[in-house]
C-alpha cells in the first residue's frame, strides 16, 4: 500500500483513539459462508499498547472531516486538526490485510459527518457490505451509526455489521444542548429504538422457525462522555440504566472528557476524570450483575461516586446494618453485596458450602480481598470483632492504600467485573 494510505492511517487511527469501545464481543456464531474470519473466540486482544490498553479491532475513522461542531470532539469543524479521508476500498483492503495476518479481530468503523448524515452512513455501510459480500469476511464488524441518518440506512447497516452503536454522547439533554447543539436526544434514542425493534423482530422470526438474515447479532452499545459538564454521577447512571432497560443495550461505554483549556492545565489522563471513569464502570457492573438499583449506588450527598473507594465498599460503609453477613447462610443476593467478593467467587462459595462449611482459609484461597472483606463477614471460624462495624475509622481500615498507578489494574478488574 502506498505512502498515502500510511499517512491517512496515522491521522484516522489517531482520531479514533478517543473512542472507548474497543472490544469485539457478543456475536454468538460466525456468519454462514464465511471464508476468512470468524467471531468465535471473541474478545481476543491481539496486542497491547504502552497505555496498557488492548488492541482488538482495527479502529479507525472513515474520515475525520465533520460538519458538526460538538465541543468535546477533536474532529469538530472548528478544530484545526489535520484531516484525512479513506476511500471505502482502502478500508476494506486494510481490514482484510490486517485480519489475514492475525493482527486484529475485525473492524470498528466510525466517521465524522461529511456532506450529510445519510451520505456518511451509506459509506460506512458500503465498507461492511463489501467485506461481507466481496471478501466473504466473517470477522467482527462494529459500525458507529451517524446521528440523524435515515432509518432504512441503519437497517441496512445492521445486516452487515455484528454490532451497531448509536452514541448517546452526553448524559442529559441539557448537556447535549450546551455542547452538541446539532445532536438531539430524541433523534438518538429513536435510532436506538429502531435498532432494538429490528433485533427483536429478527429474534422472534428465528424463534418462529424462519431464517431471517442476521441483524446486528452482537446487539448495540453506546458511548457517553463524562466530565464535560457538571452533571453528577447519579444522573449519568440513571441514563445508563434507562439505556440498559429501555433499549436493551449490551454496553454503555464511559469516556472521560479531557479538557485542556490552557497549556499549564493538568495533562489529560493524570487527573480525576480517569478514576471517575473507572468508578462509573464499577457502578455499571453493580447495576448489571450485582442486583443493585440505580438509586442506591450513589451514596454521597453530592450525588457523585466516591473516588477513593469502589462503589460497593462505599455502599457497604453507608449500610453497616446489613452486616456482618454469614457466608454459610446468606442468599446469593446477599453474598453479592459483600465488599471484596466478586460474582465468580459468590458462585464458588455457593457450591463449596454445599459440601463443607466455609472457613476463612477457603475465602483466602479464592483470593477474595480478605483485608477488605473480613470486617463484613462471618465464616465458620471467624466473627469480626463485634466492634468493627461500629468503628468510626472503619473506612480507613478497609480502604485500599492509594497507589499511584493502580488505575489500569483496577480498570481491567472493572471490565471483568471483579471487586
Amino acid at each position, binding site marked *: 500500500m502506498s505512502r498515502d494510505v500510511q499517512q491517512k492511517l496515522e491521522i484516522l487511527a489517531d482520531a479514533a483513539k478517543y473512542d472507548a469501545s474497543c472490544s469485539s464481543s457478543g456475536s454468538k456464531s460466525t456468519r454462514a459462508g464465511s471464508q476468512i474470519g470468524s467471531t468465535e473466540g471473541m474478545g481476543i486482544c491481539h496486542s497491547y499498547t504502552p497505555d*496498557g490498553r488492548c488492541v482488538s479491532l482495527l479502529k479507525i475513522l472513515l474520515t475525520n472531516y465533520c460538519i458538526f461542531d460538538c465541543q468535546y470532539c477533536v474532529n469538530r469543524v472548528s478544530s484545526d486538526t489535520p484531516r484525512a479521508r479513506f476511500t471505502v476500498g482502502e478500508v476494506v483492503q486494510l481490514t482484510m490485510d490486517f485480519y489475514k495476518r492475525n493482527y486484529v479481530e475485525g473492524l470498528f468503523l466510525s466517521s465524522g459527518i461529511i456532506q450529510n448524515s445519510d451520505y456518511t452512513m451509506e459509506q460506512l455501510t458500503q465498507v461492511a457490505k463489501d467485506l461481507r459480500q466481496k471478501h466473504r469476511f466473517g470477522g467482527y464488524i462494529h459500525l458507529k451509526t451517524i446521528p440523524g441518518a435515515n432509518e432504512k440506512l441503519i437497517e441496512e447497516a445492521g445486516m452487515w455489521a455484528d454490532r451497531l452503536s448509536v452514541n448517546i454522547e452526553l448524559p442529559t439533554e441539557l448537556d447535549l444542548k450546551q455542547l452538541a447543539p446539532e445532536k438531539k436526544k430524541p433523534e438518538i434514542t429513536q435510532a436506538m429504538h429502531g435498532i432494538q425493534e429490528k433485533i427483536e423482530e429478527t429474534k422472534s422470526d428465528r424463534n418462529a422457525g424462519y431464517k431471517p438474515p442476521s441483524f446486528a447479532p452482537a446487539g448495540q452499545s453506546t458511548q457517553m462522555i463524562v466530565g464535560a459538564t457538571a452533571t453528577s454521577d447519579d444522573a449519568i447512571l440513571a441514563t445508563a440504566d434507562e439505556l440498559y432497560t429501555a433499549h436493551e443495550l449490551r454496553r454503555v461505554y464511559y469516556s472521560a472528557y479531557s479538557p485542556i483549556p490552557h497549556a499549564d492545565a493538568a495533562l489529560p489522563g493524570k487527573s480525576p476524570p480517569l478514576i471517575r471513569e473507572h468508578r462509573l464502570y464499577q457502578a455499571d457492573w453493580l447495576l448489571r450483575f450485582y442486583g443493585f438499583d440505580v438509586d442506591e449506588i450513589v451514596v454521597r450527598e453530592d450525588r457523585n461516586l466516591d473516588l477513593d473507594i469502589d462503589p460497593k465498599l462505599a455502599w457497604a460503609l453507608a449500610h453497616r446494618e446489613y452486616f456482618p453477613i454469614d457466608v454459610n447462610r446468606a442468599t446469593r443476593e446477599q453474598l453479592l453485596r459483600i465488599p471484596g467478593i466478586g460474582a465468580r467467587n459468590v458462585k464458588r462459595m455457593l457450591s463449596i458450602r*454445599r*459440601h463443607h462449611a466455609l472457613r476463612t482459609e477457603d475465602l483466602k484461597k479464592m483470593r477474595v480481598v480478605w483485608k477488605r472483606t473480613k470486617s463484613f463477614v462471618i465464616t465458620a471460624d471467624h466473627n469480626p470483632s463485634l466492634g468493627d462495624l461500629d468503628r468510626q475509622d472503619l473506612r480507613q481500615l478497609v480502604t485500599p492504600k492509594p497507589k499511584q498507578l493502580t488505575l489500569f489494574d483496577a480498570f481491567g478488574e472493572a471490565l471483568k467485573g471483579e471487586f
Partner: protein
Amino acid sequence: MHIVTATDFQDWRDTARRFLWAEVPPESLRFNRIDGQPSLFDGGGVNALPQPLGSVKRNAVPRPFLSLAETVSFHRDSGRWNLLYRILWRLTHGEPNLLEITTDDDMHRMATMEKAVRRDSHKMKAFVRFRKVDRDGVEHYIAWHRPDHRIVKRVAPFFARRFKAMHWTILTPSESVVWDQKTLQYGSGVARSEAPDSDELEELWLTYYGSIFNPARIKTSMMKSEMPVKHWPTLPETKIIDDLLEDAPRRVQEMIERNEGFQRTATDLIQSQPELSQRLDGVRELAQQCQVCDLFRESTQTVFGVGPTTAKLVIVGEQPGDSEDLAGIPFVGPAGQLLNDALQQAGIDRSSVYVTNVVKHFKHTTTVTPLGKKRLHAKPNAREIRCCKPWLEAELDHLSEASVIVCLGATAAKALIDPGFNVTRQRGQVVSTERCNQTIATWHPAAILRTPDKALRLQKLQQFSSDLALAKKRLE
C-alpha cells in the same frame, strides 16, 4: 509400583481406565516423566497393563472432569498425568463431589494447570503473527510462535476455522502445523530461522499501533502483564515500543497545542466585565479589545453590529470587507449599497434594522497590482467563526425584540441555522431556529455582485429582493 507412559490425552485415558479397573491406587502407579518415550523402568509398555478383573465396572466420573483433564493434558508439567490419575481415583473412591471443592490441594493444582493452558492457548490465538510469502504464485501465511505448553494441537482447529481460505503454517520450537485449506497436518518443532522474518504490511501495522495509543496514558506494567515480554520477539509491533515511549511527551504536547484555544473564546472576555456586558454598547466596547483569533492583527478595527436595540429585524452577514474595515461600520461598501437598495425596495428602513456579521474582523490576502497594494477578501475558517461566535450571541441576547433574522450567505446560515445549510437549495424558506422562530437565509450581496453571468446575477438579485420582502411580511 507400576510405571507407564502416556503420549496424549487419549492414551492416558485408556491407560488410566485399565488401572482403575484393576483397583490400582495412585500410590502404586507412576506415569513416566518423558512424554511418549518408553523408559528404562517401563516394564514392557502396554503389555504390562492389567487386564480387567472379572466383569468390567463402570466408573462414572463427572463430565466436566474429562474436559478439564483434556485441557490439563497439554500442560508441559510431567507430573500432570499422575495428578489426573489421583483425582480420577479420588472421584471414584468416595469423593464424587471433589470437583466442586475448588480449595482442595489437588483441585487447586489442576485448576492452576488448566488455567495456564487456557491462557497460553488464548495468547497463541492472539499473538500468532502471520507473514505472507509467495510460493510459486500462491500466497502462504507463515507464523513463528513460542507457547509455554504443547498446545499446537489444541489451538490449530481454531485457526483452520478462522483462516479457512488461506494456506497457513504455524511453527513452534516443539511442534508445527500446516493447513492447506482442507486438512491440518502436524509436524515436529522448527527453529526460528526457518520462518520468514518480514512482511510488506508490517510497516502499516506499526503505523496503526503507534497511532492508536494514547500517549497521555502510559501504563507499561499493564501492557507487560497482558503481553508477556517473552512473546515480544515474535510480535513486530513491540520493536517500536521504546520509540513510542520516548516520543510520548512530544505527542502529549502536540495534543495540548492542538486543543489549546478552543475554550479561549470571546466568552472569557465578555464574562470578565459583567457591568459592561450587560449593555449592548458595553459589549461593543469590549469587542474592540478582542484578540482571540489572529484576525485582529491584519485588520484596522473590530467592526461590530449597528442598529437600535429595539430592532425587529436583524441582518447577519459574513464578515466586514475592505471598506467596512476602514470605516468600522458593517455594510458600507458596494455590497452594503446593494443591501440598502434592496431594503428600500422592500419598504424597510435600514435605520430600524440591526446589521451585523458573523466574524467581526476583516480577513484578507494582499496582492500587489500596478496600482499598488490591494486587499482581497478571504473566507473565514471554522475556527475563526467559532472564536467570534460569542460576540454574535451577545448581540442577539440584547436584541430582545427581534422577530426575524435574515442570514446573508452560507457562513451566516451555517452558523445560525444548520452546519449543513446549502444556500442554493434552501434559501427563501422561513425556518425556526433556537435563536428565532423566523429565520430566513438568502444570498450574500457580495456574492450577487461577483456573479459573472448577467442573467444569473439578475435572477439572484430578484430572489434577494423577494426574500427581503418575505422578511418584511413576517415582521408584521
